[in-house]
């Protein structure tokens, strides 16, 4: 378990010293709160916040692939999973903070969305493509509901899209992304 503790410490140092994550959390917090206040609809701000949080989840890992930092990280933790675990542990409270002022379940939701981003990044590696895929799942699936002619299809698609109202569905998406992402991380060459 010392590996995990060391990884957590390493990740904490990175998160503290590179502005990406603090900036994303600040942006998500300010965006969510201001949209909530402007519209009076707590769910509207969450739409904005989840986009930022998802991209932060992608960046924390995919950013390492684009800068090459992934190599020292993987050298330090040859079993690889501690690094991923440490990133996940850091992301969850960061994401949950964004939901201050919303319902507690929204904090859980944002945590899941951050992990969805992390899992997708582990799977796809290219930051922009991974972000595009996550944003597609978050925003494009719901826009397709209105095109569905058959009420059964529409209901299925609605239930299958991650949303603050469907924590179980969201968790399933996150679990799938993390599972595939972890397998990729453990089995594929780093670059």
């Amino acid at each position, binding site marked *: 378990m010392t590996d995990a503790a060391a990884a957590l410490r390493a990740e904490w140092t990175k998160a503290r010293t590179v502005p990406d994550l603090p900036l994303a959390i600040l942006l998500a917090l300010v965006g969510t709160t201001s949209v909530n206040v402007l519209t009076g*609809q707590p769910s*509207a701000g969450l739409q904005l916040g989840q*986009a930022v949080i998802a991209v932060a989840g992608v960046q924390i890992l995919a*950013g390492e692939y684009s800068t090459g930092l992934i190599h020292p990280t993987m050298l330090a933790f040859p079993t690889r999973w501690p690094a991923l675990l440490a990133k996940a542990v850091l992301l969850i409270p960061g994401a949950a903070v964004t939901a201050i002022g919303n319902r507690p379940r929204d904090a859980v939701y944002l945590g899941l969305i951050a992990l969805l981003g992390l899992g997708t990044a582990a799977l796809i590696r290219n930051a922009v493509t991974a972000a595009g895929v996550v944003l597609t799942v978050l925003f494009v699936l719901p826009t397709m509901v*209105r095109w569905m*002619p058959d009420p059964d299809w529409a209901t299925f698609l*609605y239930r299958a899209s991650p949303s603050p109202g469907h924590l179980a569905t969201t968790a399933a998406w996150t679990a799938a992304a993390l599972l595939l992402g972890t397998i990729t991380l453990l089995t594929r060459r780093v670059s």
Partner: protein
Amino acid sequence: MIRAELTKLRTVRGWLFGLTAAVVLFVGSALLVAAGSHMSCGDQACPAPPVGPDGQAVEDHFGFAHRTLAGDGSLTAHVRDFSGIITYPPPRHDQIVEGLVPWAKAGLVIKDGTRPGSPYAAVMLTGSHGVRMQHDYVHDRAGGPTGARWLRLTRTGASVTAYASLDGKTWTTVGTVEMSGPAEIGFLIASPGDITVTENGLGGTSVQSRFTQASAVFDQITSTAGGEWRYDEVGGGGPGADWEKYHRPAGLEASAGRLTLTGSGDLAPVSGMAAVPYLAGTVPALLAVLIVAVLFITSEFRRGLIRTTLLASPARGHVLAAKAAVIGGVTFTVVLVAVVAARAWSTTVFRANGNIVLPTGALTDLRLAVGTAALLAVTAVLAYGLGVLLRRGLPAILLAVLLTVVPYLLATTSLLPPGAGEWLLRVTPAAGFAVQQTFPAYGHVLLPYTPAQGYFPLAPLAGLAIAAAWALGLLVLAVLRFRRADV
């Protein structure tokens, strides 16, 4: 320079894959939605709605008491009584109440026979919009003194003029339209369904229409056309509502200079039916395009290729413009091909499933195809501009999605109150989606003209112009910054 950029776009495997994905997503979504649309009316194909003189699919269903009008002539009458019922209106939808829907119609009409979809000109009293002159389903104008109950319709040569009056002595002209040929002249009664909008529990809304019926008593009738008043329910022949079976059937009662006409329906462009859903794949394709457009510039920064590019052609503004032209032009072409393929293919599937393909008109089809291609091209340039400004892919793609897809999503679902949603579709680059509105909104047809139903607050070209202004503005900012920046 453009050739160099084209070569880059063509040879990077990921970008080519992204553009292919955009086409596949566009066509695939259209096919999927078309394949899921089924319509059946018992064992046979559903009857297509009639087509009006202007080429739109129309509803032409009303009670018609008529005589033949050979040449010139006129008809004058006083509307003694105008009343009706509405079945199960909001809020509780639990009883049948007396009343008229806003566009219930009672009045005089000259029509080219009783064939549904034929031309007509009419002057009428409406439920709550006063006296109107309407013709050929899509044209509507208000007129006459407030509270007028006297109506007159005259034909002289090829023109039909409508008048209204408070007392039957002094007459005010409501309007004149052209209409010639043999015709039937007489009385009309119509009452469109009562429209209510409910949230459907899927983040969207659904529209319901409930049966209504109107009844009018006409007296003090003066007609130059002779003969009996013959009654036809134009466009009727359906099974009839329970109310008609058990309480009051549609029809005509004549007695001592009085005509009582009872009926339902409307003379209006068809509403509440979907066109072929071939634009269903716009948002998925848009996302693929956004990714390619952002990567098209940010990977030059990341890999340092931008230095080589600028060595080869040091005019920085020109380089940026050439790249913008390439990403915009390629997106436009690719999406145009996708729209044409999606339209042809999904129309076949849509029709094979028994759906009615509503006529939209060649100009509208052209606008939808070229407009959708332009919308995606403009949005691609916008994303590219963000990429130049921010230089990093992630914030650029995030901002691009937040500016385009998210406002569209918020406005077309019930996440925001409708007013806020429409406001988003006026000021954000998502305004460009207005170019995809298939049918115009008609003032004389009561419907929820909301983004969720495919109606946008801006005119198609105005919306596209807003999106283009965003793209151009960001591009100019990017050029200004890039000229002075270090690479």
